[in-house]
């Protein structure tokens, strides 16, 4: 199957459409809520929560014996929430730092989950196959009801987000101020955390425990590069997330043996890399260009200053001098001389240069400016 075939099939093939819609919605909600996680400096919380959800899935299966997705996800939600609050408790009540707390919850819960999973696998009832799809996710197992659930949660998150937009925003940027204004910061905090956990749990089936954190982070980190405005960032992150979902599904569907989760994550990473490099305001490329330009400008002005130093000892400013006397001066090249000439600061005749009135004024002003500063 090629990409074009895929997009043709998208409108006719039921399964493909379900999966694509599912990953798109998932990407959107993850991007939306991930923005908050990133801005709250809780980027790795997602990693810890997604790993912490694993024992919940196993226990839900052990208790009910059913493979119903919703029941398993409920278990995941509960154990994810327990993990989150334990992290909070650990960092506030003991002197363990947040990185240690995150790492502990992540690895210990996951280890316990693996213990349960392998225990389940050795059990006689054969119903257990498919639990390990939560490790790496299998978008192919998405059914329409899953997509509806995702859409419902996304809608709910959107409504809550719009309702409490002001509070969330305030809390994000100045928690102390929010508290002094009398908002219930604890409630706001718990609401955001709850929705982040919810989004992660929803993604487990598609992307899997191990890679879920990237789903949350990457679109948000990419969106952050293009804007300084929260609303724009949330919107962009949702768009990036949805596109990573769709492209990731498309690529993995057109190739053999490619699981969807890792491909989606890679697509999202490409978005991030692209944004890091090419975003006009913060990107590395433009920053480097600006940096170069500034340095060049500085060097030109340095050369001009040097010329000014020579020229001002003469009564006639435009008295010609030999280019050779500049030779000892650092940062001077033929190119810079030509550029200065282009700016009409000097005129060159043969091997000699002469300052123009414009160049003289410029240099003098520059001198005044810097002496004003001092």
């Amino acid at each position: 199957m090629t990409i074009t075939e895929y997009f043709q099939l998208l409108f006719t093939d039921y399964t493909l459409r379900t999966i694509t819609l599912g990953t798109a919605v998932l990407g959107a909600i993850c991007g939306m809520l991930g923005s908050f996680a990133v801005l709250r400096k809780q980027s790795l919380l997602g990693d810890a929560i997604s790993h912490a959800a694993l024992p919940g899935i196993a226990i839900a299966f052990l208790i009910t014996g059913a493979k119903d997705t919703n029941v398993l996800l409920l278990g995941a939600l509960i154990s994810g929430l327990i993990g989150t609050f334990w992290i909070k408790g650990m960092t506030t009540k003991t002197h363990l730092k947040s990185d240690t707390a995150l790492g502990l919850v992540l690895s210990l819960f996951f280890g316990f989950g693996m213990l349960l999973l392998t225990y389940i696998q050795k059990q006689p009832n054969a119903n257990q196959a498919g639990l390990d799809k939560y490790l790496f996710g299998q978008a192919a197992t998405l059914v329409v009801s899953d997509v509806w659930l995702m859409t419902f949660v996304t809608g709910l998150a959107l409504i809550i987000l719009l309702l409490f937009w002001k509070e969330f925003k305030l809390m994000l940027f100045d928690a102390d101020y929010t508290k002094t204004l009398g908002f219930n910061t604890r409630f706001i905090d718990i609401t955001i955390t709850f929705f982040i956990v919810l989004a992660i749990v929803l993604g487990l089936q598609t992307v899997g425990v191990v890679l879920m954190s990237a789903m949350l982070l990457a679109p948000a980190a990419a969106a952050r590069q293009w804007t300084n405005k929260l609303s724009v960032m949330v919107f962009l992150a949702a768009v990036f997330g949805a596109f990573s979902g769709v492209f990731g599904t498309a690529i993995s569907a057109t190739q053999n043996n490619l699981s969807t989760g890792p491909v989606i994550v890679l697509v999202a990473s490409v978005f991030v890399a692209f944004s890091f490099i090419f975003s006009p305001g913060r990107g590395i490329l433009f920053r480097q260009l600006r940096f170069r330009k500034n340095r060049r400008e500085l060097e030109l002005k340095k050369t001009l200053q040097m010329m000014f130093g020579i020229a001002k000892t003469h009564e006639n400013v435009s008295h010609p001098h030999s280019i050779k006397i500049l030779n000892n001066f650092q940062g001077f090249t033929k190119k810079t001389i030509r550029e200065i000439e282009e700016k009409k600061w000097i005129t060159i005749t043969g091997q000699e240069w002469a300052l123009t009135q414009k160049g003289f004024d410029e240099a003098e002003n520059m001198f005044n400016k810097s002496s004003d500063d001092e």
Partner: protein
Amino acid sequence: MSSPQIEIQIIAAVVAVACAIPGVFLVLRKMALISDAISHSILPGIVLGFFITQDLNSPLLIILAALSGVITVVLVERIQKTGLVKEDTAIGLVFPALFSIGVILIAKNANDVHLDVDAVLLGELAFAPFDRLIMSGVDMGPKSLWIMGVILLITITLLLLFFKELKVSTFDIGLSSALGFSPVVLHYGLMTISSITVVGAFEAVGAILVVALMIAPAATAYLLTSELKRMLFLSIFFGIFSAISGYWLAHWLDASIAGSISTMLGFVFLLVYLFAPSKGLISVMYRQKQQRTEVSLLTFLLHLNNHTEEEERHINHLREHINWQKIRANTVVDLALKNNMISVEKELVSLTEKGKNFTETALDYIITNKDEKIEHLKEDFFLFRG
């Protein structure tokens, strides 16, 4: 106990010790999550190494994988330096991408690679004794034991050689560079050792559970002591204990050894987290409660000191005035009575001589905010605490 069983336990214990030592420094340097990142991102290195060597135990593979671990660290630091995202976001962006590449590489070559992702995540300690090192026809024991043994030996040698430098650079970067130990060299040295350990251990316990073996013993020990040497010994002890008890748990449940080792680690951590003297949850909460009562007592005494009018000092009035609930108010009044700070006559509360002295000293402290004012306060005045 059969001989493979003993060998498995020895391997598990060696892995636990090898992980615990760098783990202590990672936890102290607040870089615990770097171990998580490394453990994921060595995957592409392992896969590539496996394509070249076709042998999971080859030293070249270990070097390649450790290299990809170090590359991760460098990449994370590079991204941090751009200032485009925060530190933790940088970690969170790098390792899933590298891990995905690894997973895809495995999936694309599934037919000719005897390497599956479950094994990478979980490891297969149970099979470790069957892969034996044969030298000129003589059975020298399991290969992974040799690999981990060598790694452990290197780690211990480096630890003994550079203990002082590591200690200084962990707790005071400024001092360490002033003394001439380059923090950068030590940092990358530690990162390299961690990467090598993770790679060596991944086969035995899997990529994610390496993280448990690195962080959990160190964190557990950190709750019990603040001394570096003792912390190292304690975390080695916790590591070995969980490794061996974890093995028997797995034996009993017939489940993954790696999973049960980390479950044991979690269990030990939970116990210490709850019951550790002075730093555990229960003692912290007890102390906080005590402090709250002490503050209440002080507030109460200050109130008495401020008011001479009778109605302000009436025992029922106090309750509503300071807005305490009944039980809390009773506790505080009782405490003050027990300490002979107040006397109650006809439902009127007044300060005793001792109470007055105490309040004044406390006021002194509040006004000047100098610690020496209250240094002796507790010894001089307190007989009973909440």
